[in-house]
């Protein structure tokens, strides 16, 4: 074989090795850790003016590629009205676009104290996530940071595919 041919083989092997190193790095690199804490006021306009209001606390924690999302509901007196605890993994972190891709694989539901009714939002979220988990074994969601100020520890994020905008505290 000519010298030129050997060089070509060497370069091809080198490129393959570089590709393997890149692949190993991308597979083993751990996504950024972050924690968001979002509090919301829930309003449910019922028929004939029968409104029922609640508070919702959402904690989104990403650590070493694992994700945990807790939805905790409270009535106006501060009593627990239900909890949805989801766990999954962070599939991808796009730091350039400020997007986080999460797959929820398990969820646990706890109803409120003393048999009080669960909020409409709890029922809605339980239905949607249950539907996805039962159909495909996972409930995928992405979090896009719309606005962020590290100095003031806040971020406004957009959850997809639900298209939910939410202001959150950045917890360090």
């Amino acid at each position: 074989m000519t010298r030129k041919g050997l060089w070509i083989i060497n370069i091809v092997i080198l490129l393959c090795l570089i590709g393997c190193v890149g692949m190993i790095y991308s597979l083993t690199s751990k996504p950024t850790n972050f924690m968001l804490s979002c509090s919301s006021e829930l309003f449910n306009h019922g028929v004939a003016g029968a409104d029922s209001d609640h508070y919702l606390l959402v904690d989104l924690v990403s650590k070493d590629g694992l994700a945990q999302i807790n939805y905790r509901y409270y009535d106006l007196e501060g009593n627990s009205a239900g909890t949805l605890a989801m766990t999954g993994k962070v599939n991808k972190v796009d730091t350039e676009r400020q997007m986080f891709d999460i797959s929820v694989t398990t969820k646990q539901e706890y109803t409120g104290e003393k048999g009080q009714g669960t909020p409409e939002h709890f029922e809605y979220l339980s239905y949607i996530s249950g539907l996805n988990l039962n159909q495909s074994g996972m409930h995928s969601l992405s979090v896009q940071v719309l606005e962020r100020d590290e100095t003031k520890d806040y971020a406004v994020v957009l959850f997809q595919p639900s298209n939910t905008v939410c202001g959150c505290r950045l917890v360090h």
Partner: protein
Amino acid sequence: MQLGHCRFDIGKGDLINQDTGAVWHLPRAELHVLSLLVEYQGKVVAKSLLESGHEDNSHLSSASVARAIFTLRSFLGPQYESLIETVKGQGYMLRPHRARKETANNWLRQWIRPQQAILIIVLVSVLLAGLWWFNQQRNEATPVLPLSVETVTLKSEQQVDVILYSLSNTNNELLTEQAQQLVKSLQQCPVTIWSRVFVSLSHDKQVLNITLRGDHYGQSLIRNLKISDLRQPKQFVTPQWLAQLNICSTSNGRAAPSNQLQGG
């Protein structure tokens, strides 16, 4: 010299079957014929040359040469007897042949040249890289851009940005309508603590999300409102309800338990 599964030791005049270990010390005619065939391997050796005899100038008969060819072919066995080819009317030819252990490589080399192998490797690499890129692109979620940004000027000349988010650019009448209710109510405010308002409607149009963002003495304030409406037609926000909500407030509205915890 390797001939099929046999090794020809030209010095000793032996033909050794490497499979069975059988050694055949070639008789004079066979040695002469095979030596000439090896010497002119790949070329036709004329019958007259084969019959010309050995160094001692002794001649071989045509029948002796034919018998030598026959016995040599017999020793080579049915698998390799075709190595000695009869060229009609001319003579015999020993076809070029390499060791059997290289047969597989030979076969491969016949079909794939080094340049072709490199080309195949490059093509496969490009194909794999293409598949990886396609997979990345498919999984890539594109960031959602604001559907609209409207700056509302209050009576005190304070400006509030109302930013709408939607996955689609069409079928956003309900979102736009509800946002307009919010804009009208804000316009009635002499002043408010909020500087930016983010509004989105859930993909199934069941929940309207409003996030109010402001600053108070250098500290960021956030208020999230999630409104469900079971009524038809849906009226997530009305002027009366927004008035109750106190969006013209100069403080952070009603305090949620989390806000108390987080000092927000």
